[in-house]
């Protein structure tokens, strides 16, 4: 069976769903980061696949940008996370509700 565009898009959709579920359900901040990475990378797969399908490099370039930004985001996020962990000895999301409405 030839692997075509649809397969990639289905994979991207499944990964996006997993990421979205992780974002909604995870209580551990580290796991939340993983979930956002999955979300971003599912989009990257979509970009790359469509770019290849149309033989247009713009989509792949965009994917690189997303990777770069995701990396920097994780760098900053992990830094904050470590500081937070040192102070509070916990990275549970439910204990982070300081700004209550």
């Amino acid at each position: 069976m030839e692997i075509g565009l649809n397969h990639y898009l289905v994979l991207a959709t499944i990964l996006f769903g997993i990421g979205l579920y992780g974002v909604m359900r995870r209580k551990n901040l580290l796991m939340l980061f993983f979930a956002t990475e999955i979300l971003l990378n599912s989009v990257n797969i979509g970009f790359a696949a469509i770019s290849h399908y149309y033989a247009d490099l713009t989509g792949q370039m965009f994917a690189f940008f997303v990777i770069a930004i995701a990396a920097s985001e994780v760098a900053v996020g992990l830094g904050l996370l470590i500081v937070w962990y040192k102070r509070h000895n916990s990275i549970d999301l439910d204990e982070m509700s300081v700004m209550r409405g």
Partner: protein
Amino acid sequence: MEKYLYIALFAPLVSSLFSALFTAQKKKQFVGVIASLLIFTAFASSTVLLVHILNGGEPIHVTLMTWMATGGLNIPFGFVVDEVSVVMMMVVTLVSTVVHIYSNGYMDHDKSFNRFFAWLSAFVFSMMVLVMSDNYAGLFIGWEGVGLCSWGLIGFWYNKESATWAANEAFIMNRIADLGMLIGLFLVYWNTGTLQYEEAFAAFPGLDHATLVWIGIFLFIGAMGKSAQFPLHTWLADAMEGPTPVSALIHAATMVTAGVYLVIRSHPLYDLIPNVGLFIASLGAFVAIFAASMALVNRDMKRIIAYSTLSQLGYMFAAAGLGAYWVALFHLMAHAFFKALLFLGAGNVMHAMHDELDPFKMGALKEKMKWTWIMMTIASFALAGVFPLAGFYSKDAILEVGFVEHHYIIYTVLLVTAGLTAFYSFRLVALIFHGEDRYTLFGIHPHEAYKFMLWAMSPLLILAIIAGAFQHTFFELVEEALNAVHYHIHSHVTLWIMIIGTQAFVLASIFYAYKKYARKGIKVPDGTSETEQSFLYKLLYNQYYIPYFYDEYFVKPYRELSSIFWKKVDLKVVDATVDGIAKVLYSTGSATRGMQSGNLSTMLRWMVVGLVVLLMIAVAVGLAARYSAELSQFLAGLGV
């Protein structure tokens, strides 16, 4: 000469603004001194202007700047000093100077000393604008200005309930009358296209009679309010709640005569409509006797003098209505002098008696307050019109006008009033100064006023005595401006009978008043004596039940109506709508507040929900755009 005009006009304004700087501070003596000096400057300038006009100088006319210029409407800030306004300026500045100096003593212990001078000088400025303006619009500004200052000064002791009530009453009654005046001004502008006196007067003869009558009536309604003519008279007696110098300046000498000034100023109009003039004269004569009768039994010193002011204003209107404008203006001037003197004397008595106003609780004050006694007696003689004091010349002239013009009813009414005037004036003097002392019972130790207050009053005393001698000069001054004519009774015999008869009548009234009230054994009335039980006494004492009537038939229904509107319309409709909007917003807020739990996880979930909703909308809009043709066909099928 224009320089003096500006000084006379703006010195009081400067004085007012200067005093206003210190209103929030403790009493500062220099405020009173500087205010008095500035008002004196205005007086000196007015004197220079009077001399200029007396020597046959041209009237001074200046235009300060354009006030309104739009389309066909062009109103400048113009001021004029002619024969009529210069007389008013003299009266206003002279009495204000005296009152300013006097107030330095009278308001000595008042903590709002500085505020008092700010209001008082502001009043003088407004009055100057009123009398000096060369158009009706400027007159109206001054008119409203004096009304405002009168409100501020009647309610000067604003922590007294009765004072604020009286201030509001005066203000509201004047507003009612001012509506009439405004309609009059609109009619003038509508029909002549201008509000400048000269141009309007030139245009009046070309208008039809009915229009002129309406203009005359509406302008006179304004005058009725300001000069407290029936039926808008109740505010004047209540205005006595203010400090006594205010009563002397505003509610005796100047502001209340503004209505008379308006009629005199508009004399080319009233000359054309003698029927309205006759109405004015009749109303004046009626008010004269009506007010005098209320003064007969009143037991409040200041109110008695206020009613006498009302009565004298009636005299002025009677003269002005019969076309004797110069006589009205002359009586206005003479009245300003002796009435202000009388009020300031009453102020001395009030000070001595610790604000006691009932003359029945005084008596025998002439030993303690010799100079006040002399001044008030002479002022009362002048008010009663005894020869050779000021009131004799002016009041006698009014009586002669009534006689010569063959309005014998008006003449008789005014003659009877002259007797009543003499009686109540000397009833007051006898009760305060003669008889036996009744004040020690109430624990009062009277003392004479400060020397400088008495000195300040002396110019008024002199003028109350000699003002009559200027009658001829005065006549020559205003002869041209007011088309003045001498009113001669042709038969000498009739003339002498009239004069001597009037004098005898007045003197008899004075004698009767002395006999009745200067004797020993006067008791403070307690409502049990036969006189006090009589219907007539009750009628007069309750001011013909007119204040009661107004309260019952105007104030109370109005209050009821207001209360209905408040409870039914305002609370149930207007407030409910506004509150409803607020409630919707508020409850939406509190219902959705739970979303902001501060928990990152919850927020992320809401974010996902938002994403899904936006996606759905985007898809729906996209589908609608794609199938729009089919959709519109489908909707048309439904008949939309």
